[in-house]
């Protein structure tokens, strides 16, 4: 089979939130085709509404965009949207059905009816100005107003309007003003929609006819009997028939059967009395669409007809063959107005949810970023955050922790303080501050110390509004438990996560099991594999994750999907051959064709081209100025190609709206015209021409001086373009993995299964890492079978070479072609590899204090886990056990939460209680980090009688050894006195410390963070990558994590690595830097300036070299260079200077 005949693997990603985008980008980068569908009209999901994220308190979403093969993907803010040559994005679409087997699924995708044609809408906004209907703004969580026809988000591209069909009165004003005819809600169309009403009762016939024709605008005919109806069906075509079941003569069922023969496309709605509902159901089995129970009114009939109308008129179901499916449907949030205890939500305007508060903080929010009280619009001075609303609540069937809300609240508190110049006082009321992610411990400390945020460990009893609408919080004092009242301007409720609405539907349709809370269930030890092979859950779809975890999970799901496609023989998308620049073109004088889109003569008329050409006559390189009515249509495109070919010009400048939108067309255009992509420049003339005309009629193309400036700068750029082949560097398609714990093993298998060679280096004698002592998880899963299975596969895998008792000494080279020296028992080897994955893991941290070393019965969790394993009687002989949490971490020395120890304590405490129910078990803790579904084990432990006593960091429990035995003294805040507990065992939660020696990191050339863990390029958006390209990490070396989380990160890291390994070579970006050696004085300032380490000094040839794979085209080197030797293609100094000249045109 030749390459062209081979089936190209295609994956379907459902949901285009950040999880979906991550999964789609990973798959697309590995070379597969992706169809990304999204229910909403925009991509970005919930993140479209969140301007800033912890721990940076800024955005940084664009950091998700790949750094290699940049030209395949959009180079702009991700809030505007996404473009990738291998990704097809369909918004307003949902998955209807899925059939088949992994590798050969057939998906049916329903595109929702859209009243505004996205291809025609230019986002000019005239419709919004005339729309008389105001609705609550859905983008701002229903705060503030917008029109029924509105932009779904302020920044998205394509920037097409949407209509809220439930609010729209169909007045048709927008349709009249739309300059491109994009809106279709007209009555003319509705008149062509014919409805037949068949009933023997005149009153039914005439009232239905009146509603349908007068109120809804359809054409309605009536028939008094079945025979008459069939006759009419034979002569006219009807879209819908309302059919009575009980009629004299021919009854409804018979008419239905015959009608299906005469006019099979007519949708039939049965009308029935209550008594004959069963018949109506029968009728649906033989082809009726729906039924109505008499008596009915206009309100129940019209929506039904409208939905049939919309479905028939505008919707299309598409069939798509895909090899794998990734579900990234995200989550929804608890609606406090549905709960019993709502903290006054709904009753007081000043009580808002965390999402609403987020919109209030946003400068495109309802108050333009000013923090105002919603009731009187006065500045907020005091705001309270109440945690765990709809989470950790057994009454609401929410015995889980939503994991993200603690950090979310801290971020909002910090932002509120920052944005108000410290005028706002913020207090967070919490049960446990679950800041369990690596950077969050210090983030919360900063919030307390630098931002003055008050952390109150108390469950708020209630909120009441006083007569001035202030929110009065009643809560037990954390000091002594006495009831306090405190007044706040605003209250923010940290609403918990819930399964997405689509989640249940998808689960039903795909027959996927869900857990007791409705989240999709995954296989043991996996965050993303569902019970159905080939179907994966990514992002936060399985619930209770923050962004970091969601993206890791999305990456893992992409890896699963990629493997499913590979296994089914799906090949990679063919890479388009780069057009070799014509050497003639380099020598030829630039001759520019200027194509302007007038957007259906809206931006002036074709006559303008003469006026503009006149103004550009001092630019000798301008060959022709040509105005087109609509370049975005396919006929306009053909017209353009024809005109350019005829003119003989060698450069093309296109002036249009939204240049980012047309990226795929530009690539196609360059290919059709057989010119280098660099010779086609697209510039936005729409915005300035529109802006100029703000105070009246648009000035048109020739009237706007800004349009002229923009065209001149476009010409300036084009005439200096130097089309040149993009430099490529080869890729060694082989991976080096350091560390043979479960993460390293998983990553090795994931890469080797896709057909690439892996070298696995482990410093110890045996593989398995921490799995050697962790025997089972809190869920009761045995780890031995997991290890056995993976090790079995690893040892047999022909593509994996294992080096035990080995260590990496040093690595040279850069992304795509590294060489590492590895020391093993039998000498030194050199390994060539394209990427490196670090999985050196973490081990239990050393403990100081807490009586450790006083007696053998004071031990760490790891020691006790082994003791329990050795002696099964250990637990049953004990009467009193004390667990002390945070014994090694969350201290000055290790200022992070080790996050696994609370779960381990819960696991061990539950184990003792099961073995020996009469034993007394105490847990002394600071915050129980029972995040996600671990919460239910925390609840279970409390139910079984484990006693939890909180302690403060500055007042830790003390352990003493007396003659009678061990005693632990701790302060109990409920009893308000010191407790002295006699203990048979004291178990210390030591936490985890990274196993990443500094010399190894230095040898590899990667950074480590302040705690000694692997430093991610960006904690949130690049969670498994190093800032040094080509290095990835997984498992506990990234930061503390449990077994399934380690496995997920391993798959995510493998997925990122595969994006590179699947390529034989990497091509640099179009906009990238180079050096003119004749001007270079080798001062090396550029080497220092480059943030990516892309530049090196070649001492032999006395040259500065730029690695095209590393250079991202930021231009820092250009400004650092004192001689003008460093240049940035696309932004050459000559181009920039002339662009500045153009500003004064």
């Amino acid at each position: 089979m030749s390459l062209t005949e081979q089936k190209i693997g295609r994956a379907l990603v459902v949901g285009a939130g950040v999880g979906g985008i991550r999964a789609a980008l990973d798959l697309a980068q590995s070379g597969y085709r992706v169809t990304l569908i999204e229910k909403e009209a925009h991509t970005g999901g919930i993140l479209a509404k969140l301007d800033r994220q912890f721990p940076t308190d800024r955005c940084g979403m664009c950091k998700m965009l790949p750094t290699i093969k940049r030209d395949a993907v959009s180079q702009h803010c991700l809030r505007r949207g996404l473009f990738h040559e291998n990704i097809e994005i369909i918004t307003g679409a949902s998955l209807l059905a899925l059939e088949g087997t992994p590798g050969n699924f057939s998906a049916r995708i329903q595109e929702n009816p859209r009243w505004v044609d996205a291809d025609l809408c230019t986002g000019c906004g005239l419709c919004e100005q005339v729309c008389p209907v105001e609705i609550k703004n859905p983008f701002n969580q229903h705060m503030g107003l917008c029109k029924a026809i509105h932009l779904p988000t302020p920044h998205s591209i394509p920037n097409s309007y949407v209509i809220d069909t439930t609010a729209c009165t169909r007045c048709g004003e927008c349709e009249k003003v739309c300059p491109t005819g994009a809106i279709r809600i007209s009555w003319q169309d509705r008149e062509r929609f014919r409805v037949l009403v068949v009933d023997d009762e005149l009153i039914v016939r005439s009232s239905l006819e009146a509603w349908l024709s007068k109120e809804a605008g359809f054409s309605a005919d009536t028939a008094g009997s079945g025979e008459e109806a069939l006759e009419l069906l034979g002569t006219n075509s009807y879209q819908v028939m309302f059919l009575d079941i009980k009629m004299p003569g021919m009854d409804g069922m018979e008419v239905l059967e015959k009608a299906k023969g005469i006019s099979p496309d007519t949708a039939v709605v049965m009308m029935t009395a209550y008594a004959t509902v069963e018949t109506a159901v029968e009728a649906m089995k033989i082809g009726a669409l729906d039924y109505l129970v008499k008596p009915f009114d206009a309100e129940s009939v019209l929506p039904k007809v409208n939905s049939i109308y919309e479905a028939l008129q505008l919707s299309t179901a598409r069939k798509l063959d895909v090899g794998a499916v990734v579900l990234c449907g995200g989550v929804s949030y608890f609606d406090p107005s549905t709960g019993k205890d709502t903290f006054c939500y709904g009753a007081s305007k000043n009580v808002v949810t965390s999402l609403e508060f987020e919109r209030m903080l946003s400068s495109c929010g309802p108050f333009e970023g000013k923090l105002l009280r919603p009731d009187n619009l006065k500045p907020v001075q005091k705001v309270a955050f109440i945690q765990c609303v709809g989470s950790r609540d057994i009454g609401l069937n929410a015995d889980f922790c939503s994991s993200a809300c603690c950090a979310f609240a801290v971020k909002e508190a910090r932002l509120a303080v920052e944005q108000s110049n410290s005028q706002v006082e913020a207090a967070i009321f919490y049960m446990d501050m679950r800041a369990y992610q690596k950077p969050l411990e210090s983030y919360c400390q900063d919030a307390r110390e630098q931002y003055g945020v008050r952390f109150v460990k108390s469950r708020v009893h209630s909120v009441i509004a006083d007569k001035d609408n202030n929110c009065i919080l009643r809560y037990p004092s954390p000091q002594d438990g006495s009831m306090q009242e405190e007044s706040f301007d605003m209250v923010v409720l940290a609403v918990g996560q819930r399964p997405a609405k689509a989640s249940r539907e998808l689960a039903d349709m795909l027959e996927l099991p869900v857990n007791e809370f409705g989240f999709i269930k995954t296989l043991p030890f996996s965050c993303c594999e569902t019970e159905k092979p080939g179907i994966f859950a990514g992002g936060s779809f399985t619930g209770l994750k923050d962004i970091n975890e969601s993206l890791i999970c999305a990456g893992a799901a992409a890896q699963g999907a990629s493997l499913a496609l590979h296994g089914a023989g799906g090949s990679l998308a063919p890479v388009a051959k780069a057009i070799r620049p014509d050497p003639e073109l380099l020598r030829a004088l630039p001759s520019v064709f200027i194509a302007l889109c007038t957007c259906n003569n809206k931006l002036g008329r074709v006559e303008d081209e003469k006026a503009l050409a006149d103004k550009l006559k001092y630019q000798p390189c301008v060959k022709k100025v040509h105005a087109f009515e609509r370049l975005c249509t396919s006929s306009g495109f053909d017209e353009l190609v024809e005109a350019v070919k005829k003119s003989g010009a060698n450069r093309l400048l296109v002036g249009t709206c939204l240049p980012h939108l047309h990226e795929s067309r530009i690539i196609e255009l360059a290919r059709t015209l057989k010119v280098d992509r660099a010779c086609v420049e697209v510039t936005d003339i729409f915005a300035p021409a529109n802006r100029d005309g703000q105070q009246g009629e648009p000035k048109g193309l020739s009237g706007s001086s800004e349009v002229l400036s923009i065209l001149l700068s476009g010409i300036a750029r084009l005439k200096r373009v130097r089309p040149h082949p993009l430099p490529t560097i080869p890729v060694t398609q082989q991976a080096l993995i350091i560390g043979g714990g479960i993460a390293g093993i998983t990553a090795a298998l994931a890469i080797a299964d896709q057909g690439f060679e892996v070298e696995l280096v482990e410093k110890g004698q045996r593989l398995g890492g921490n799995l050697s002592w962790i025997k089972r998880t809190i869920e009761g899963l045995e780890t031995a079978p997991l290890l056995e299975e993976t090790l079995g596969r690893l040892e047999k895998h022909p593509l994996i070479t294992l080096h035990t008792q080995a260590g990496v000494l040093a690595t040279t080279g850069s992304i795509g072609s590294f060489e590492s020296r590895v020391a093993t028992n039998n000498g030194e080897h050199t390994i060539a590899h394209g990427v490196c994955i670090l999985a050196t893991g973490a081990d239990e941290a050393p403990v100081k204090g807490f009586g450790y070393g006083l007696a053998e019965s004071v031990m760490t969790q790891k020691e006790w886990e082994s003791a329990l394993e050795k002696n099964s009687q250990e637990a049953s002989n004990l009467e009193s056990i004390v667990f002390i949490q945070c014994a090694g971490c969350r201290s000055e020395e290790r200022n992070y939460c080790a996050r696994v120890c609370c779960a381990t304590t819960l696991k061990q405490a539950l184990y003792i209680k099961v073995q020996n129910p009469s034993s007394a078990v105490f847990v002394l803790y600071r915050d129980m980090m029972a995040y996600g579904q671990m919460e239910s084990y925390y609840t279970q432990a409390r139910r079984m009688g484990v006693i939890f006593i909180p302690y403060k960091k500055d007042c830790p429990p003390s352990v003493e050894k007396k003659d009678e035995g061990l005693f632990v003294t701790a302060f109990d805040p409920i009893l308000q006195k010191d407790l002295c507990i006699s203990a048979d065992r004291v178990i210390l939660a030591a936490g985890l410390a990274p196993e990443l020696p500094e010399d190894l990191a230095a040898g590899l050339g990667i950074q480590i963070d302040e705690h000694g863990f692997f430093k991610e390029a960006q904690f949130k958006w690049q969670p498994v990558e190093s800032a040094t390209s080509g290095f990835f990490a997984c498992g506990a070396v990234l930061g503390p994590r449990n077994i399934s989380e380690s496995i997920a990160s391993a798959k995510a890291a493998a997925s990122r690595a595969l994006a590179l390994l699947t390529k034989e070579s990497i091509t640099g970006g179009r906009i990238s830097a180079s050096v003119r050696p004749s001007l270079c004085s080798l001062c090396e300032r550029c080497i220092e300036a480059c943030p990516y380490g892309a530049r090196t000094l070649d001492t032999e040839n006395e040259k500065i070299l730029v690695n095209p794979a590393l250079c991202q085209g930021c231009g820092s080197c250009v400004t650092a260079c004192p001689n003008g030797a460093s240049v940035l293609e696309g932004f050459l100094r000559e181009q920039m200077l002339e662009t500045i000249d153009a500003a004064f045109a």
Partner: protein
Amino acid sequence: MESQQENRQDFEPFIVAFVCNWCTYTAADLAGTSRLQIPKNVHLIRVMCTGMVDSQYIIKALLEGADGVLVSGCHPGDCHYINGNFKARRRMKLLQAMLATMGIEPQRLRLTWIGASDGIQFAKTMRELVEQVRQLGPNPGAARSVA
């Protein structure tokens, strides 16, 4: 004196703004699609990063007749290219000191951080800058031909 005051009110300054591709350009676009009032006498030049804005570009713009120059990029810590905005900050600080020696008020050069969703902030900054430069009057350093 009075007439000079009056002149300043009539004076329409011309501003050249170098905006970064990732944050401020998005904000400018957002301001446009949100139909916010942006002074017409602002000309945007898109650059990939504020770190690539050479002092030469700014001096050229001022000499050619711009009454004010804005350089605007991502917030600290937010730069798509890791630290380009910090480089810009260092450079602008130095350049402002130099402008004074050239007889150009340092206030004519401004560096701001405007994030992608701060369309309103963008419009506001533009209006403020125009007003500030209006108060300064025409750029004395401009080598413009007298009309």
